[in-house]
């Protein structure tokens, strides 16, 4: 097997996009179920939100925010490539996507703690 393609940054970008998309898709039903508890009243939703007020839940939320930002930035890279033909400097585009994702995560973390 020729592994050269797999050592390129765009392969890493593909893996990150796939894993983040997968985890976000699994998170979605949970997210909707939690928000749906608001139908039974504010207290129900508040109960859940208070349950997530601990370091473990906040770490998980931060990870989700990073995944969402990474998938967003990486997805925009793919769309720009496909529809606008932005083929040049893909390494830099991947690096910029990673930078955006980490920056959003950092801002979230600074606000949440």
């Amino acid at each position, binding site marked *: 097997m020729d592994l050269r393609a797999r050592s390129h940054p765009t392969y890493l970008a593909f893996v990150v996009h796939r894993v983040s998309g997968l985890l976000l898709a699994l998170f*979605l039903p949970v997210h909707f*179920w939690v928000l749906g508890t608001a139908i039974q009243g504010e207290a129900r939703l508040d109960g859940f939100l208070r349950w997530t007020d601990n370091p473990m839940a906040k770490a998980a939320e931060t990870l989700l925010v990073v995944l969402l930002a990474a998938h967003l930035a990486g997805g925009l890279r793919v769309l720009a490539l496909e529809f606008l033909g932005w083929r040049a400097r893909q390494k830099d585009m991947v690096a910029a996507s990673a930078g955006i994702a980490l920056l*959003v995560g950092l801002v979230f973390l600074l606000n949440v703690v």
Partner: protein
Amino acid sequence: MSASERHGETPAAGRPRSATTRAQTHLWVAQRVTAMVLAIAVVVHLVMIVMAVRGGLSAAEIIARTRGNEAWLAFYVVFALAAGVHGAIGLRNIAAEAVGLRGRGADLAWVAAGLVTAGFGIRAAIGLYA
């Protein structure tokens, strides 16, 4: 490059190639269109999240923003539909490549799952509105 080539898939055996590739192209287009909608929605959502978590997240704070607000309701309905469909098509692509789950029945099941997920999102959005 066609949608099927892009995903490295071969059309299901015993099925006219054109029908299968056309269905795949439809799914490919649907995923790209929903991705563009989501690009805007997710930026809005991320800004909102980062602002909302300042000083702790409470149901009262969320509902103060969403109750009786048609603009947020409309936003969340569109967001839920786009995310449900986009996520399901994405899962379909992964399942097709990883475990070879393909074909018209599987495609329809994935789209249905996406719409059910979107339905739960819309239900939640209505809960926050009403």
